């Protein structure tokens, strides 16, 4: 018999925040990449590499902070290979992104083999004076680890960067019309390469959050499509930072809710519940595309070569 009263709303909101954070980190990074006109479909591969590297470094150094740094660096390095291929060797972005995912999946299970079943040190929950002690809200919103707040701060920072700084304007110009940006003297390839590195680092942090906080363990293929959902969220968000956050929390919500319903023994087939995050992703994509509000950067996915 289903017992919904076993679901504690305070814990529910708190766990939604935890479950949304990895997707949010990956999605906000990918959004910047796409804003610069590059489509990197390798988010899943970069995320899982970040997950395994972060886990391995955290276990060996007993410092989760070091794990996060290493994860960001490793995934940025992986992203660099994508950048070199697509920006200098002008390879097809869709195919290269898929290749990146396949490489990342192989690399991660190779690195991760000895770490299976181990426990890692995890991030401490912050105890914010006053705020954490508030009734209800304190435990719901203000008793998380640093990365939860970092991810939200990153959304604000990206928003401010794109909207209010000159560099952000240039990045958007490169994404909208690389030929015009090039004619104005901007280094299209370098700007895109930097965006790709940023996207890689963010995906790495997201992956490390999965293996160090959310789960916290290393298992092969543990991202289970989180990177692809992050890609879908960027489309859902119409390339706007605020909506990326909303999207990530929505999917975090669906994930947590279905797990809670499974635990509560809801009268819905388990398979349907497990598949629900993916089905909701499809549904949302359909709604967004049916509305026709695409707002995709005009040069998204198009290769740039200065001679042409």
């Amino acid at each position, binding site marked *: 018999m289903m017992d919904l009263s076993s679901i504690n709303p305070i814990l529910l909101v708190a766990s939604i925040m935890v479950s949304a954070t990895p997707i949010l980190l990956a999605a906000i990074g990918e959004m910047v990449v796409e804003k610069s006109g590059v489509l990197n479909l390798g988010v899943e591969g970069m995320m899982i590499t970040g997950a395994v590297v972060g886990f391995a470094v955290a276990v060996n150094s007993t410092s989760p902070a070091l794990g996060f740094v290493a994860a960001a660096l490793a995934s940025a390095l992986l992203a660099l290979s994508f950048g070199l291929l697509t920006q200098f060797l*002008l390879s*097809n972005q869709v195919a290269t992104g898929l290749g990146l995912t396949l490489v990342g999946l*192989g*690399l991660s*299970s190779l690195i991760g083999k000895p770490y299976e079943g181990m426990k890692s040190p995890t991030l401490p929950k912050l105890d914010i004076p006053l705020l954490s002690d508030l009734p209800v809200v304190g435990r719901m919103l203000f008793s998380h680890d640093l990365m939860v707040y970092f991810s939200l701060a990153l959304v604000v920072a990206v928003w401010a960067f794109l909207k209010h700084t000159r560099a952000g304007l240039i990045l958007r110009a490169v994404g909208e019309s690389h030929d015009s940006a090039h004619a104005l003297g901007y280094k299209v390839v370098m700007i895109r390469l930097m965006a790709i590195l940023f996207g890689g680092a963010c995906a790495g942090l997201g992956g490390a959050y999965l293996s160090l906080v959310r789960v916290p363990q290393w298992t*092969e293929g543990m991202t289970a499509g989180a990177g692809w959902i992050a890609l879908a969220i960027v489309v859902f968000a119409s390339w706007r930072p605020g909506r990326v956050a909303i999207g990530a929390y929505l999917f975090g919500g669906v994930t947590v809710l279905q797990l809670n319903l499974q635990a509560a023994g809801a009268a819905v087939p388990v*398979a349907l519940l497990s598949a629900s995050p993916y089905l909701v992703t499809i549904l949302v994509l359909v709604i967004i595309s049916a509305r026709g509000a695409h707002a995709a950067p005009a040069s998204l996915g198009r290769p740039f070569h200065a001679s*042409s």
Partner: protein
Amino acid sequence: MIRLEKRPQPSQLWTYLTPVLAVLLTMLVGGVLFAFLGANPVEAIRTIFWDPLFNAQFAGFTRPQLLVKAGPLILIAIGLSIGFRAGIWNIGAEGQYIMGAICGAAAGLAFYPSESFLIFPIMIVAGALGGWAWAMIPAILKTKFGTNEILVSLMLVYVAETILGSVSTGLLRNPEGRGFPGSRNFKQWDAAHNSDLIANTGMHWGVVFAFIAVIGAYVLLTRHMLGFNIRLTGEAPRAARFSGVNPARIILICLGLSGALAGMAGLFEVTGPAGQVSIDFGSGYGFTAIIVAFLGRLNPIGILLAGLLMALTYIGGELAQLMLGLPGASIQLFQGMLLFFLLAMDVFTNFRLRIGKREVA
């Protein structure tokens, strides 16, 4: 100063040369990787590429495996390549492969224990339909709403995997299996068993269909109007529309075809080498087939060769795991690297390398 100059036409020579160079480069870098993992690189490369075919001790056992692994890879990759040619990115072949296996197996099991010769053909049709239907979801969503087919087809892989888990512990579970997950074993049911057509060659019906698909795709792409329209849609979408090609029709055909072929591959696998519907049936063929399609230059003959080569790395990888203790994941990485190097080398197909100062036009 090195710079790239766009070729007016992609180079024919480099089109054929890049896959070979990519393989050599992957062997080289893979060798370094294996050395890092503590294996002798020369021995590792020999174990992967040479021993499965020519080692006196194993070849008798591993050679038939070549066709067993290459069959599904080629069948799926042929379907994918036709879509890729039209700029339609079905990357959810793994899901269509799983759904084909489930639908085909279910259609067969409905008639258990009949020994009619019609059972297997019915299962093939049901498998193809299952894969087709699963691919129609992204196809219809794309044509009706313009939804991105990459993301939808990929999300459906995860959905298919949960369905697989559900049916192998529920709907299709062997009623005589003492509660163990997994369906009846098709190897013990002659009417539905996809056995070797010639004993110990690995040549089962899936391999036959793979060869038929290669020929069919070749004819379609080089001799048929539809094939021309598919290529036109990929290379010049605007020109295609002006000449009256209906893009929605191309999307439905390309996704439907690749789904049906992937579904058939799944059915041949479940009734043959795998033997039953089980939770771990999905083996990643649908993803590796993407590499096969690119490595074969989206060309049917090329895919045939690439499929055989990729099958070799699977078998050689298993052998290297057994003989040299190399981790299984290193082969997955090896295959991924192959695609990466191929894409990198492709720059020479489309560009000319110029050394020296740029001339003022």
